[in-house]
Structure formats: C-alpha cells, structure tokens
C-alpha cells in the first residue's frame, strides 16, 4: 500500500518569531528525510496568501496575524507529525551558549598586536610556512622590527638578498631561509641541542654543522653565547655573506662572546676573503670552520672539519677537546656507505673519506631529492631505515657509516628504528657470507631530551662502533675499509 503526500498545519497561538527565524526553521525542517516542503510564517493575510499560492495552505486552517503557523508537506503522516513536533521543540528551545571566544591571531600584524596586549611583545618571528609565502611573511616581520628565524626553504635568492639587506639596514637578524638551528639569548629554535651557556659565539650557514660544533664544544667544557644560523646560501656569491658578516659584527660587539666561530660549507672564494676580513676586524679570537678548506692560522684560524673547528675554538679558551678514536684493526679494502640525516655531517664525512682515499658513497638523506613528500630523516627515520636495511644486500658495501642527531625538534626515539634496520642489514649480508661493520656517532649532549648516553648505549648494544665525533666516525670507517694511509692532522 502506498501513501500519498500529507499536508498538515499546526498553529501556535500568539507566539511571535521574526520571519528570519522562521525561514531558518523551515529550511532546517526541509532537510528532514521525507519532508517535501515547509512553510513557517506569522498568520498575516499576506503570508497566508503566499502559502496558498504555493499550494501550502490546508483548507481548514484558521489563523490570525498573531499566530505562528507551521505547514509541512511530507511523504506520509509519520514524517509530517515528526516534523511538526520538531518545530514545536525548536520554537520552545532555550539557548544557553555564551558569547563566542576570540579567534587566534592569523596575521603578523594581528599576532604582534595580540602578543603585545598580553605583555609579550614579540622580538622574533619564527617562520616555517611554504616557501612561496615565506618571503612575504619575513618582510612583514622585519618591517615590524622583528628578528626572523626562517626555517622555510625554496625562497628565491633575490628575495633572500633583498630581505637580508633590509635586515642589515635595520640591524636585525634574518636567519635563513633554510635555517635549521639557532640559539638566541640561550633560547633554542628549530633543531638545537641543549648546550651549556658560555662564551663561544657561532655563526652558521649549516644546521647540523652548527649542532656538531656546539655539541663538541659542550663536550670540551665550553659553552655557547649565541648560535646564529644564516641559512645554507648565505656565503654563496649571490648572497655575499650578508648575514654572516652582520652576525660577526653583532658578536664582536657582544660582551658575552669571547670567541667567534663561523661554520659553513666552502664559501665562494671572493666571499671567503670578505668573511676573513670581517673576522679580523671583529678583534676577537676567531675560527673559520669552512669544510674542506686547508687548515691555516692566518689571518684567522681556518679549519676544514667541524671537529677541527670545535677543537681550535676550545683551545682559544684554554680547553681541550678529547676525542679518542676507537681502537680497531685496519680492514680489507671495501666500500663505505654513508647514510646521513645531517647534511653537513655527510659533507664532513665525505671530505675525510676522500682525503683517506677510500671508496665511499656518502648520501645526505635530508637533501631535497630525498625529502619530497616525506619528512626529514631527523624528524622521522622511516626512509633511512629502509635504506639501511637494503645496504645488507649490496655486495660492495663493507662498512656502514651513520649519524644520529639529537636535540629539540629531532625524533624522540631516533636510534631504536636504526638498530632494527642494522640487524636486518647484517642478516642479509650474513646470509651472503659477508660481514658488515657499522660505525656511527651521536651528535648531542647529556642534556638533550633523547639523552646522549642512552642513545650511545643502544648503538653499542647492537654492535655498532660508536665514536665521539662525526669526524672520528669517518676516520674509523676509513680504517675499517682498509685506508692505506693517514691524513696529516686528521686521520691517524
């Protein structure tokens, strides 16, 4: 048996609701399954005529202008009764919700205003929005007088130059783009380790390079006054070391800074000259830690490894950096495969293994080509563990060289997933009758949230040779891979 549509009205005598209110009620009821059309009006002659015109006026309906009329056309009686009941409920409902809360600030200007009102007027903007917009946000921040820590990358080099010029003119820091690490007035930003406060001011165009140097200084008993990141491109010919030189001037004037250390991959030659001039002008003991540059003592101390830079800086404070390479016997010639999370750590290893004349393939898994669509390996070790596990089935690979980076923002549990992968790699190598030597270093301090000692113990328990520095790990790997000779000053 099929039922025909039902039209029924309900009159609420002397109940007034604004027409807007009634239209909203009708619109809500019309969304009910089986309801075809709803009219909700005050019973004025004009409104009843509107209902009649749209065939929504039941013949028996009697209403006066003070009455509220609900008319429902639905597929069956039950639907219509239900809708009229819902209408009655809605009309007698009492709302108790309070006023809306204020939304969070959404723009730089709103953020500054809100924070200032709350007694926390900002002096630095940390920016990690997509690179396309980072230049706009950074300029807004600089023009509002804020220093900028710009974690975002993919910024056009012209924008970087423009923003850094703007910052220098206003005596502000433009850290980045692509700046991973900073410690400003003792407060860590991005990937930074928990290092002691002290008198070494670091300017770094390299994130993990700065982390390694600051951790090694911590190990030597030296502390950090400021760690100013400048972004990986600052010492390129295009950017001309704009921010590095500005930061050096700033540290030269900083009473808490006794020794200045600049950390970078090799700069453009003309930029390097200007940098060294600036360091001389600073009038404080200084170390230029420029990867792969030959060591020199003039015009300032130049060191070609992170470890060498940290050692030189410690010595300037009368401290010494003790790094004991593990006692291992030289292995047969075979390939070293380096699977790195830290870009500058990979670069340092490449320099040292190159100098040792060892066959080595060093991969920076934090490089752009590996991080499209996946998180950085310092945050999520997932992809690196795949690559480590696969290393076991590479017949040419005899030594696996790894880094583990601790500190804020890094993975809370970086080592455990690596160990599982190492065991898998060893199993597949063993099945082929090969041995896989695994060498690693941990870039971190006892104060880091992950705990330096615990991470080292986890590695040792998995038969990994754990070294005190990334450079030491590279030397050890070279020796294990049959390095025929040592390199003066670096490889014993």
């Amino acid at each position, binding site marked *: 048996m099929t039922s025909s549509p039902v039209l029924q009205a309900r009159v609420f005598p002397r109940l007034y609701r604004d027409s807007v209110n009634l239209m*909203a009620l009708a619109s809500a009821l019309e969304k009910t399954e089986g309801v075809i059309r709803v009219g909700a009006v005050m019973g004025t002659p004009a409104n009843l005529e509107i209902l009649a015109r749209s065939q929504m006026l039941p013949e028996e309906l009697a209403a006066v202008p003070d009455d509220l009329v609900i008319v429902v056309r639905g597929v069956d009686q039950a639907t219509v009764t239900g809708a009229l009941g819902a209408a009655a409920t809605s009309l007698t409902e009492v709302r108790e919700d309070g006023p809306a809360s204020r939304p969070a600030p959404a723009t730089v200007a709103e953020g500054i205003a809100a924070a200032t009102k709350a007694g926390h007027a900002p002096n630095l903007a940390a920016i990690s929005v997509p690179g396309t917009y980072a230049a706009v946000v950074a300029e807004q921040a600089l023009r509002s007088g804020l220093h900028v820590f710009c974690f975002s990358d993919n910024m056009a080099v012209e924008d970087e130059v423009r923003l850094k010029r703007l910052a220098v003119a206003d005596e502000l820091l433009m850290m980045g783009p692509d700046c991973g690490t900073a410690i400003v007035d003792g407060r860590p930003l991005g990937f930074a380790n928990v290092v002691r406060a002290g008198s070494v001011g670091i300017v770094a165009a390299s994130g993990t390079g700065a982390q390694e140097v600051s951790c090694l200084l911590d190990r030597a008993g030296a502390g950090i006054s400021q760690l100013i990141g400048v972004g990986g491109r600052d010492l390129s010919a295009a950017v001309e070391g704009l921010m590095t030189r500005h930061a050096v001037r700033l540290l030269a004037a900083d009473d808490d800074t006794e020794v200045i250390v600049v950390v970078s991959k090799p700069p453009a030659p003309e930029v390097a000259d200007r940098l060294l001039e600036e360091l001389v002008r600073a009038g404080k003991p200084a170390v230029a830690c420029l990867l792969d540059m030959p060591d020199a003592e003039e015009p300032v101390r130049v060191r070609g490894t992170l470890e060498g830079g940290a050692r030189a800086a410690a010595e300037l404070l009368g401290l010494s950096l003790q790094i004991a390479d593990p006692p291992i016997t030289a292995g047969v010639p075979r390939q070293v495969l380096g699977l790195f999370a830290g870009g500058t750590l990979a670069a340092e290893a490449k320099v040292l293994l190159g100098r040792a004349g060892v066959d080595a393939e060093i991969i920076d898994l934090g490089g752009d080509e590996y991080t499209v669509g996946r998180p950085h390996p310092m945050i999520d070790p997932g992809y690196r563990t795949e690559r480590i596990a696969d290393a076991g089935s590479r017949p040419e690979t005899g030594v696996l060289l790894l880094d583990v980076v601790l500190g804020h923002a890094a993975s809370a549990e970086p080592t455990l997933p690596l160990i599982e992968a190492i065991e898998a790699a060893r199993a597949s190598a063993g099945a082929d009758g090969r041995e896989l030597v695994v060498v690693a270093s941990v870039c971190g301090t006892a104060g880091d949230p992950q705990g330096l000692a615990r991470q080292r113990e986890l590695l040792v328990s998995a038969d990994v040779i754990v070294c005190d520095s990334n450079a030491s790990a590279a030397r050890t790997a070279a020796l294990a891979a049959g390095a025929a000779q040592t390199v003066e000053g670096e490889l014993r």
Partner: protein
Amino acid sequence: MITDGLEVLNVGLPLIVEALDPATVTQLDWRPPAFGDDAAARAALSLADERTRAANDKAMDAIHAVRPQLVGVKPATEVVPGMAEGRILLHAGPPIEFERMCGPMRGALIGATLLEGWADDPDGAQRLLASGGIRLEPCHHHQAVGPMAGVLAPSMPVLVASDGGRSAYASLNEGLGRVLRFGAYDEEVVGRLRWMREVLGPAIDRAVQLRGPVDTTALFGQALAMGDEAHNRNVAASSLLARRLAPAIATLDHGVAVLEFLAANDHFALNLSMAGAKLSMDAAIGIPDSTIVTAMARNGVEFGLRVAGTGEQWFTAPVGPADGLFFPGYGIEDANPDLGDSAITETLGVGGFAMAASPAITQFIGGTTSDATATTLRMRRITTRPHPAFPLPPLNFAGTPSGIDVLKVLDTGVLPVINTGIAHREAGVGQIGAGIVEAPPEVFLAAVGALAARR
C-alpha cells in the same frame, strides 16, 4: 644580548619552538595571504607603509566627519547631476550593457521607461532599451544609490542627503511584494510609482521642510541601539523617521495615505541609510594612496568595488546568488545573482558589519547572538577604525567597524560580509528571501594591483 628576553611570534610549525616556554610564544593561525596569490601579497606588502597609513587616516577623518542631513525629497531631474539631459535611467552596481543585464534589472528598466512615458507598453520599452535609445548609467556615477535593481528615472522623487556643499541621493523605498526594484513593471507597480511621485515624495519633502532636516547619523545611531543594523533590518529607523515626520504629514492632503504607506513599510529607512552612507563614503573618493574601500555594489551579474586611491575606477568580478533563507516555495535555484547598491551600508560599517547590534536577524549568520558578535569582530580585522557615531551596545558600545582596508582584506583573507535581500531571477516575481554574501576575492586582488601600479 640580542633581545631583552626572547619573545617569539611563531608562523608555521609548533615543532620549531617546542623548546621555548609557551608563555613566550604567540602561535599564529596562519594561512596564505592574498587568497594564495603570491604576487598580490607582495603588491599589498609594498603598499603597507607610512604613506598609505597617512592617506587612510586622511580618508577616515573625512568619512567620519560627514553628518548627512535629510534636507528634502525632490524629483531626480531637479537635483541628481546629469539627470536633466535627454533620456537617461540609472541602475545599481558597476556599468553594464542592457544585453548582459539580469532579469530583475531589465524588468525594472522597462517599468521606469513606462513611468517616464517613453514607451506605450512593455514590448516598446524593451525595444527602446535594447536599441540604445536610453542612456543607462550606474547610480554611483551620479552621486546616487539604489537598492536591488536600483533603477532611478528622472521623474522619480529622491531623498536628498546633504552635508556642507555635498549631496547624495537615493530613491524612495516602495515596500515589499511586487515592486520595481525586484523587476516588476505591471500597472500596479507603475501606478504606485506615480503615486510616490505625485503624493508621497512631495508630502515627505513638505514634512521635512516643516519639521527641519533629519540628522541621519543620529537617527541610525539610535536605531542601532534598537536592534536595527541599518541594512536588512530597518524597522526601528523607519519607525523613528515616521514618528518624526508624522505630525507634519498628518496636516497635509493625502496625509493619512502617506502615513499608512509608511506604517506598512519596515524598510522605508533603508534608502536613507544608503544615501547617508553614500555621502559619507564619497568624501574619500580620490584621496591618493588610500586603500580604503569607497563603494561595493552589484548589478546582478558583477560585483563592483571602488577604492579611495583609485578614484572612480571599478574593479569587478562575477557575482553569485546569496546563501540565504528563502520564503516558502522558493530555493537557491530560483535566486538571482546578488544585486543592489545597498552594500554601501557595509562599506561605511553598518549592515553586516553591525550584526552584533541586531539579535533579531542572527539567523542569517548561524542563529545565535554569539555568531552575530563574532561576525562584527571578524569585520574589525579588515577595517580601519570604529565609527565614532555608531556604538554597538552588545560590544560595550564600541563603534561599529568602519573603513574596509584592501590591504587588511588581503592580509587576513577575511572578506566583507554583506546582508542582502534575494530577488527572483525572473523579472517581477519579487523578493524570495534574504541572506548574506561575501564580496568576491578577485576584486580585492585587482584593486591592490592597480593601487601598486599607481605608486
């Protein structure tokens, strides 16, 4: 020390500042600026300087200094500039040719042509309009504004809002039902227009002369405290205006008929609200470098925006129908794209911007007074100053947000909300609902490009 204690504004990942004391971090709920248009974001940034701020201060001083007075009701041909020469009809929104107009606007133009006696019947009027026999120009080009189709004919009476040497004009509101502004042009409609021309207009003019000019700022300020928002709800202002003029009207011939007309029309004051807002906003037209919006208007096909620093230039984008609540028997499929000059009220800072004042119509924006308050607070993010003469009681009498800044719209991604009536897409059916619309982002993107190009 680099800072006196690091205080961070974090734009992006919370991870970056996880090591800091949360009390020293302000996290932004950030989204891409300029609706994701990088070039427009940069153009906006290039304009965000002292020169623009000074220009906007000047614009806001000028806008808020205006105190429109209703000084009379006169035939358009006598007072509206350019209405005395040849056959001309004005319409709402930015310029548009007859062929591209929507149904209600064409219908209204046909009705106006019949009212002026330029054609004997609707077909004749249609032919005359299509053949270009009548100049069609926006109200805004003649210091006038009109709701919905906004059609103004030379013989129609207009409200004259004046302050100092300047005036702005608006037609008289016809009420609801079958009316010209929704495109109806039958004999009932044209007959009512004749009556308004011959009886209503002169009567109100006479009453204004007898009782003295009406200060619209005071009128609408009071109405905002009585639950109006001066765009979609005008029952308080209409009542206050009728009360003020009634003793004079009652003494006139046809006085009772005029009072009955006013008693039946909850929206009579809307057109006065519009004329006052138009006069106020015109004070800022052409102030160099100012990024303050001076007009938002829709012609049923396009949305038009004008900005102080670009003078009389229109920035336009296609417009869609309002998302609203519909009268019984109608839905969004019946709705005409958004229409009318009435968004001049939001341009000044009332209407949708004053939602907090108008609890009775909060259903348009979610149903609670909290939603209404949130809407007004959101409009604060894109405006320049509170209006000193329009305090909103629910916001502790803070002034309604006034002076839309193109740069703030782009920076926040917040679009102006506009309260509006909804017309049926076919001429003459009339109003079928009401609701809110947001201005389209494209007009702000175009405006910032033009502003930057003038630098």
